[in-house]
């Protein structure tokens, strides 16, 4: 077996040989997702207490017995929602009024909302990403003459209608945007089409098809305008803001949740599945309200559910309450649950899920700040049944200090979690059980400044990594890291270092995820005024050492902020990769926002080349795993079919002249790994330390065995060797 001495010797030698690490050849560890395309394609419709609610990229829509209410998502610069409500008023064929039933509740059919207006007339709305497509389907059409549909209009935009010829009606709030109702088309059963009329008559919307077409149309006949959001050219409206992400092992989906402002004081909390192998999946509405902020989501692996928590308030200043929403495996929603006590003002929630898969692994924790009262902890349990009911358990107090802020909780820690929060000039970590009990002594560590840091924390239940932003001077925050260990009596500081400490540059908003062999830290770096970048770096599982180079994750707009990480491990998978998501914003008011995401894997593929052939009997040397820093599981596997081979070894060299012996050449060893070859196979662990200084370093490895019936090397008469391989240390 490889001794520690061997490891250190090889690593030191590698470090010396590598010089300045270069990643020119390193395979990418992070891959950007096309979130723009994903979000542009979102469309959702589901039933809630008020009827049917749905959304597309730039709008929200609601269907109830009164009809449809369409709200373009104009962003927070819109002082109030600008709505257009459409209610079917009458249907005429020539002078004949067709009997219709109004006041009926719509029926949900996938992304269709259907109103059965009569046995032969169906009013239908398809919720699409770019708008709502309204259709009237007629299976019988008595009478003769033009077919005219008249709808009553209401809402803030109702009085703002303007015709664009016969092609469209625009309902626009000046400077903000609005709604467009597009051209009417008639389509009969044979596929024949005809352009219809579209106009405003006495404030009502009138859609029509000419008699000449209708009289000859094969039934069923469809009348089909499109209602879409018209976005003001002068100011965008992509007002996606705060987000979080989690992973579920069973579905192999990441779930991204984010807030979308329809107007100032009108917000939706939306969600989108992203299948690791299948790509974008279903979108759905998690919640809507006045001001919804700080969504956080965690996975409950055993019951295949997600738990979303968020702040909800009637105004910007509050009073905010913390609410939770269970997302079932089929993406239906469980009952909405109030987490914070009635009458309190609670903000900054965070939630831990449960990566366990056992029958009892259905509990989790929610942490939040109660204004003026400190940090609270709420235990919850999910009902394993189909309804996904959340049952609230113990409520505990983590801190009574009213100055405590920014609580965070671990997502991957199993039965022992850590809550971290900031105080002016210090960061605090406190262990808790999954049952909501605060256990052991907390740890309070000074940050070196007087500001209140924003921490992030994750870990495996025994070891934890806590990152926080420490303000050294105005405009100079650094990302610091503390390794914490559970001692049985509390959390103990086991390591402390900087994740990033650019002088005179603000670095803030850390996020942490435990990946297994590494931690992943992402944070925001000020790159200029109205310009922030999201950076990410892998950290060693202990000691707060960096274990990878720093990545800059590009976004779709000028500024990237608020990174969030979902490790697959936190969702129950035995896997090391993660999704990093963040918000991108434009650089000028109103700072419109998008969501961006990158997939991250902690180890790059092994980079190896064969530098020399072997000699003697067949002997193979294979790299097992990625020769990447921090890969403690990396090994070299030696195998042969020679039954006489008794001892195998691997020569580790640094590129010096090979040793030549007869027709054999052997990597000049700086170290040798050796061992018996039972069954012709031996595996030699070669853990790669978390030393970025190793990156780019080359290690020549060559296997050898003795005992063969060959005699190619006079010095070692039974020697056979494998091909020599040159491994390059990558991330």
């Amino acid at each position: 077996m490889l001794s520690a001495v061997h490891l250190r010797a090889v690593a030191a030698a590698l470090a010396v040989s590598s010089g300045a690490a270069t990643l020119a050849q390193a395979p990418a560890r992070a891959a950007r997702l096309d979130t723009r395309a994903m979000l542009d394609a979102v469309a959702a419709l589901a039933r809630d207490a008020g009827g049917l609610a749905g959304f597309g990229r730039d709008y929200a829509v609601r269907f109830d017995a009164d009809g449809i209410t369409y709200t373009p998502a104009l962003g927070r610069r819109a002082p109030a929602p600008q709505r257009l409500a459409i209610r079917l008023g009458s249907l005429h064929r020539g002078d004949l009024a067709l009997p219709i039933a109004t006041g009926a509740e719509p029926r949900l059919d996938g992304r269709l909302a259907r109103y059965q207006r009569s046995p032969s007339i169906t009013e239908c709305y398809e919720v699409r990403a770019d708008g709502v497509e309204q259709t009237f389907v007629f299976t019988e059409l008595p009478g003769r003459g033009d077919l005219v549909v008249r709808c009553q209009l209401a809402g803030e935009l109702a009085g703002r209608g303007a015709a664009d010829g016969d092609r469209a009606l625009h309902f626009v709030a000046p400077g903000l945007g609005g709604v467009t109702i597009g051209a009417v088309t008639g389509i009969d059963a044979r596929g024949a089409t005809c352009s219809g009329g579209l106009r405003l008559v006495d404030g009502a919307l009138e859609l029509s098809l000419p008699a000449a077409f209708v009289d000859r149309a094969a039934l069923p006949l469809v009348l089909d305008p499109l209602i879409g959001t018209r976005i003001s050219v002068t100011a965008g409206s992509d007002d996606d803001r705060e987000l979080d992400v989690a992973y579920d092992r069973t579905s192999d989906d990441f779930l991204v949740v984010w807030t979308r402002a329809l107007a100032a004081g009108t917000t939706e909390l939306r969600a989108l599945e992203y299948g690791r192998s299948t790509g974008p999946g279903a979108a759905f509405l998690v919640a809507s309200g006045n001001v919804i902020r700080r969504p956080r989501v965690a996975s409950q692996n055993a019951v295949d559910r997600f738990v979303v928590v968020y702040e909800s308030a009637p105004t910007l200043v509050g009073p905010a309450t913390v609410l939770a929403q269970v997302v079932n495996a089929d993406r239906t929603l469980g009952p909405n649950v109030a987490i914070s006590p009635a009458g309190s003002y609670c903000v900054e929630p965070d939630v831990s899920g449960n990566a366990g898969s056992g029958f009892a692994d259905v509990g989790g924790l929610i942490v939040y700040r109660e204004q003026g009262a400190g940090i609270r902890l709420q235990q919850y349990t999910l009902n394993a049944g189909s309804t996904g009911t959340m049952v609230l358990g113990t409520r505990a107090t983590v801190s009574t200090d009213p100055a405590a802020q920014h609580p965070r909780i671990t997502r991957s820690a199993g039965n022992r979690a850590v809550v971290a929060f900031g105080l002016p000039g210090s960061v605090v970590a406190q262990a808790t059980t999954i049952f909501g009990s605060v256990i052991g002594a907390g740890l309070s560590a000074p940050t070196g400044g007087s500001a209140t840091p924003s921490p992030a924390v994750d870990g495996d239940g025994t070891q934890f990594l806590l990152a926080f932003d420490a303000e050294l001077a105005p405009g100079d925050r650094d990302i610091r890291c503390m390794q914490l260990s559970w001692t049985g009596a509390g959390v103990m500081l086991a390591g402390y270092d900087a994740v990033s400490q650019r002088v005179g540059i603000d670095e803030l908003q850390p996020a942490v995820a435990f990946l297994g062999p590494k931690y992943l830290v992402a944070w925001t770096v000020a790159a200029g005024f109205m310009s922030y970048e999201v950076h990410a770096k892998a950290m060693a599982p202990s000691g707060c050492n960096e274990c990878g180079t720093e990545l800059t994750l590009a976004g779709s707009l000028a500024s990237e902020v608020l990174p969030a990480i979902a490790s697959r491990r936190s969702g129950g998978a035995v896997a090391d990769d993660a999704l990093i998501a963040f918000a991108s914003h434009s650089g000028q008011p109103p700072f419109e926002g998008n969501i961006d995401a990158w997939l991250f894997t902690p180890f790059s593929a092994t980079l190896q080349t064969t530098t020399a052939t072997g000699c003697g009997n067949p002997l193979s040397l294979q790299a097992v795993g990625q020769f990447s820093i921090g890969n403690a599981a990396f090994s070299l596997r030696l195998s042969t079919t020679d039954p006489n081979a008794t001892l195998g070894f691997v020569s580790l060299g640094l590129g010096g002249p090979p040793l030549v012996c007869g027709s054999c050449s052997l990597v000049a060893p700086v170290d040798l790994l050796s061992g018996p070859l039972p069954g012709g196979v031996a595996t030699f662990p070669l853990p790669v330390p978390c030393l970025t200084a190793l990156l780019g370093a080359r290690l020549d490895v060559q296997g050898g065995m003795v005992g063969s019936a060959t005699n190619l090397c006079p010095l070692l008469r039974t020697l056979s060797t494998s091909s020599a391989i040159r491994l390059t240390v990558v991330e």
Partner: protein
Amino acid sequence: MNRFRPSLIAIAPWAVTVLAATAAAQHPQRSMIVDHAPDRFVLVQRADDVLLGMGARYTARFHTDRVEVAPATSRPHTVALRSRAAARGAAPEPLARTTPPREDGLRVRYGRGAITETYDVRADGLELGYVFAELPAGDGDLTVTIDVDSSLPLAAVAADAIEFGDDSGAVRIAGVLGIDALGNRAAGSMEYARHVLTLRLPAAFVAHAALPLVLDPLITATTPLGVTPGNSLEAAYDATTDRCLIVWQQPGGTSGTSPMEIRGWFEPGGAVLLDSAGSAGSPVVGNCNARDCFVVAWPETGGIVARAVASPTTLGSLKALTNATGSSWPHLAISTNASPTADRMVIVATEAPASGPASCRVLATRVSASLDLAAAATTTVSGSGGLYTGVGPVAIAKSGGANGRYLVAWSQGFGGTPTAFMGLCTDTGALASTVVSRPAPGNDLTEIVADGQDGQWVVGLRSSPGAFPTPGFAGRLHLLGVGLDGAGNPTPRDPVQITDDSGGGLLNLALAGRRVVASYAVPLQVRCTSSDPQCTSSRIASFTLTGCLPCQAAEEFYWTGTHAALVRPSASGNVDPQRAEEVVAFAVTGTLATHSSQGSRLTLDNRVGLVTDLGGGCGGLTARVYAECAKTGGTHQAVVKSVNGTCWLVIGTDRIDMRGCGTCVLVPDPYTSFVVGPLRTDRNGDASWQLAVPATPGLVGVRLYEQWLVSGPGLQGCASFPFALSNALQVQIQ
């Protein structure tokens, strides 16, 4: 489900009224400083060589040969009393001729040999006493006969009382009592016949009485229900001496057809008679801080007269500020001058000549060290001819002479539209700006008031939607903020209605810190009809100075009455930070049957938000930013002033302190905050945004960060960012 419920965030103008009426009341702390001042009024004072004694509802003139008692009636009436004789038995002895009356504090004495005739001047009446050091000869009942000459008819006679009166008021003499030197008492009686009043004590008591013996009836004056002393209360405050002067007009003079006195009450200090000439109109009072005195002005005999007064015994002489032209002066207002050195006072008045339209006149005078007033410089500020019609009510910013500028406002018809005109004048009375106008928000303009200083004023209007005259209180009250444009001219903003459609009236304003406090009356429809102007409920509410949005909820503060005065304890240009949130309110209070007045010092709820300027402004922006009324139950208002450009407001609970653009620091996190805009500025170059703060105690302590981004000519933070930044404010909800 109402799908079109308005957003809680955006405050529609119509909602302001609702907010004012429904927001949770944060009642001001009230400490009463004077209770029933007119009812406590009592004074003995010489005026024009006549010794006067005054109580709340009467004035007595003490002549050598008689005492005239004038009740506070709307018509001049007196009841003159001449003591004729005293007797014990059948032979009356004429009372000795008297010397002129002498005052001793609140007692007036006539010496009549062995008998002393005394009058104790009390607030509730005159206590007449005949003090017998020796008794007349004889052994029968002791009687005193008094000749009575009354302009009031005899209304009632009883064994122990007699009353002269009519529907305008009455004088009552009652309660004959005998008290000897040992304190023994006996009830007496009275008789009245042929203008002779006989007071009588029974012989049995008199025979054993220890001398001196006092025969002691009480003379009181009454006024009918609804006739209240102090109907025209005005008040001012002097910061140096920390006292108020309350002045009012009261019937009580003996000359003219509608005799009126101008009375005052120093609190602390007591009563003062300012004028008893008999034709005084409603007075106004302002403080002259430099002289530690008050200047009281009122219309009289076709002109305006005024006098300065520093204490109940330190009065300047009466000064006619205008010639007696025969005009009437139906509206009058006076400012305060809180400068510690300036001795000028400015008055604005409506002059209504006998013929022709009324005009708005500004009068400026000076107060000498001896409290004499200088001749007034007079300026006419209203327009005339053409489309102009006559001037109605007038106003001047009561607090406001900072920087030597006063806002003057008046109501005047223009082109058939009732219009509020505004201009600035100096403390010499000269017009110092362009006169600007604002059409009334209704079809009339029946009240106008103003307060403010230093480029920030609020004008209050009462205007009715219906045709004039509108009965009762259908006139709605409005406030409009007034700023200054770049040329130094006043620029009124849109009026904000502060009462609901049932109306209101008797509006009064007082500046208090960054707010303006309004007192007004609203109909009390529960108890009586809305058309009865006496049947009102008074309210006090505060509003933000810039946008006139409700900051402190309207509250019912007094029952049934009329606010007549509302004054800020700290004065213009001399703002006492300790008093910034205080006002003094005086009101006629009580029910119809028990009218009286109260004066209270109101310490307003001073929770306007803890505002910290975090700096960070850049890019050539010189605008001032304000955060007003950041309190639970209020409407927080973010304001940027004097901007030439397009504004965005970044307001949120997270800060990011973004740097990298010269000296700019953007404090609120623009990515998680509300980003409101583009907001265009008004004519003043001001932009603002409102946020209703729920009345939830848990919000106390919540911090908001707010900062303005402004684009426009010459405004650029740095090459990469075409916006200038205002300073950032940290606002902590209180």
